[in-house]
């Protein structure tokens, strides 16, 4: 070192420190960009709106049906939850009220000789389903074991897990890819690589974007939970709790896997315009789990295979857990497979990344990046 240098040179930061610095830059840049803030906001509002609308449309808060009652049937109608009795003097008056459409229907005493029930319902055009439903007596049902989710919910949950994973992975995956190519295109990568190692650069990119992806997904989860509690859909929440926790774990590892694939694929090209061809297979890989769970969510075999395949496991396994089809050890095995694949892919990806970052000009062939130094 030169004796005339005014201040002593600080210690060279280690790989971990450099990684954190790179990650910090990724996060700060991303959080500051308007497009990121807007898309995240739209996503959050969208999820909240879906939950609230879903609850409204399911008809939980509709007004009770107004029916005319004669003194003999007052007790019957008062006992029914969904009906509001409008007292009239006799059957004739009740008929008049129905005809005048002041009430949906009239419940009057059935006095005919062959009557099975004590009451008769008078309606204008067609049989009033809600009135009949409210008056119907059904026996208590006892369910043995876990309740079976109905098809609609089953489909919806598969869709939700698939969509969240796909959206987050494609959004942040493309950001990683774009930043990688941009660094290569603007040649700042030459300055960076004369300072930090390619590994630290790759690790920082993955770490920073994973942190953002997890944070965004956590915000989504929080909004969903709050939305469900506020709209009184707690039972669904109870059924989703454990699968959601598994989803979170799978999500983190699965995202890191995809991030490594995105970064190393993008490092093969030097210009933003060239990213399309190299990213197409990666994009397909990212969207595959979504289509698998949506189209095959009632096909046990396909779902079972998908729940162990690394790329689709983050979505397929939580769905199977929610459906109650997975045994306790299955998510653990799938997680080990996923984590193992992730480590292997990162090692390979770092190699590709290291070797293609400084190869400017045309597209670097994958085999070349792996063979040559």
């Amino acid at each position, binding site marked *: 070192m030169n004796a005339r240098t005014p201040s002593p040179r*600080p210690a060279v930061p280690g790989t971990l420190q*450099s990684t954190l*610095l790179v990650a910090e830059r990724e996060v700060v840049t991303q959080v500051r960009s308007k497009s990121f803030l807007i898309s995240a906001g739209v996503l959050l509002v969208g999820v909240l709106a879906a939950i609230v609308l879903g609850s409204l449309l399911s008809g939980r808060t509709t007004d009770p049906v107004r029916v005319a009652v004669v003194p003999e049937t007052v007790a019957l109608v008062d006992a029914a939850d969904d009906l509001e009795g409008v007292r009239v003097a006799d059957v004739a008056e009740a008929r008049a009220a129905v005809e005048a459409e002041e009430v949906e229907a009239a419940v009057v005493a059935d006095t005919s000789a062959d009557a099975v029930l004590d009451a008769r319902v008078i309606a204008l055009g067609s049989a009033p389903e809600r009135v009949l439903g409210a008056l119907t007596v059904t026996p208590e049902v006892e369910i043995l074991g876990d309740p079976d989710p109905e098809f609609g919910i089953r489909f919806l949950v598969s869709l939700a897990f698939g969509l969240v994973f796909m959206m987050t992975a494609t959004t942040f995956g493309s950001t990683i890819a774009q930043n990688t190519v941009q660094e290569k295109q603007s*040649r*700042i990568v030459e300055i960076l690589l*004369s300072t930090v190692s390619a590994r630290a650069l790759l690790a920082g990119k993955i770490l920073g974007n994973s942190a953002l992806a997890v944070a965004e997904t956590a915000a989504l989860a929080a909004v969903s939970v709050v939305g469900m509690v506020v709209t009184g859909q707690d039972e669904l929440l109870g059924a989703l709790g454990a699968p959601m926790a598994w989803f979170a774990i799978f999500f983190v590892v699965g995202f890191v896997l995809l991030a490594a694939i995105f970064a190393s694929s993008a490092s093969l090209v030097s210009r933003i315009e060239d990213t399309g061809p190299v990213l197409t297979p990666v994009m397909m890989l990212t969207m595959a789990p979504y289509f698998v769970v949506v189209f095959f969510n009632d096909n046990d075999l396909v779902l079972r295979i998908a729940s162990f395949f690394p790329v689709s496991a983050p979505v397929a396994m939580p769905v199977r857990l929610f459906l109650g089809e997975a045994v306790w050890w299955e998510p653990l095995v799938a997680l080990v497979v996923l984590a193992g694949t992730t480590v292997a892919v990162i090692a390979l990806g770092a190699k590709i990344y290291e070797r293609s970052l400084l190869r400017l000009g045309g597209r670097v062939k994958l085999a070349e990046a792996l063979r040559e130094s």
Partner: protein
Amino acid sequence: MLRLDGIHRSFGDRLVLDDVGFAVERGRLTGFVGGNGAGKTTTMRIMLGVLSADAGEVTMDGRPLDAAGRRAFGYMPEERGLYPKMRAAEQLTYLARLHGYDRADADARARDLLERLGLGGRADDRLEDLSLGNQQRVQIAAALVHDPEVLILDEPFSGLDPLAVDVVVGVLAEHAARGVPVLFSSHQLDVVERLCDDVVVIAGGRIRAAGGREELRDRFAEPRYELTTAGDTGWLRAEPGVQVVDFAGGWAQFDADETTAQRVLRTALDQAPVHEFRPVRPSLAEIFRDIVRDETAEAEQTAAEQADATSPRTAEPTPEQVR
């Protein structure tokens, strides 16, 4: 002192650096001159360690350079590279922090440097909002922000106006004065000639000339003289041993050996008052042109030889033609 020895590098089967070796002395500005594709950028990348050499070594004060030693280098790549969306000071701070400075220190350095380069008022503007010349200054700042122990700059002056060139040269000279070896490449030979203490000329992947600027000019000087007198210089053409290159009235340029030149001067003094008599030394641009011209001639010659060597084979009739 930074030294390169016997550096070879090929891309595929194309040899781009052939036994490249030269030194960048401490405390001196060294200009690196060569045409397009001569190998300047490849050489610089190898010095930086972003590219590996097939053979040869780079040493600093006699010790081979390792990654740790190279981290203290300041580098400005030929293709400008910074984050377009980041603010000027912010990216410099980021780079300084990657070199180990803490946040406050890094920020102070970044702002101080921008101030010295005349960009103090634009420190918090995004890079893409700055003019190209100003982006260039930020780029130079990026190479300097960590107080480098070696400076390697690829075309630092391209795109700068003359005033900006002076500002940048001032900053570079300051670093050189502290004992930092400074190497920069340039196409602008007049700038190199004005600024550099040492010059390295590369052509076709080989070092053609290296040394002090004046020493080079002397070495490549033809025995040429310039004479300006109050009278006419037409008589020069009749002098034995004198080859007149150009003349106009009282001014003439001629080639002659040392003794003949002194004799000519005496004759001239006898004829009319002499205003000026001096040996002509070539400018860097002229030296460079000569070197490159030789290079091209040589390449053509080799190409011709190769063509000769291969022609008998190509002249052989192909089976197609026989049938």
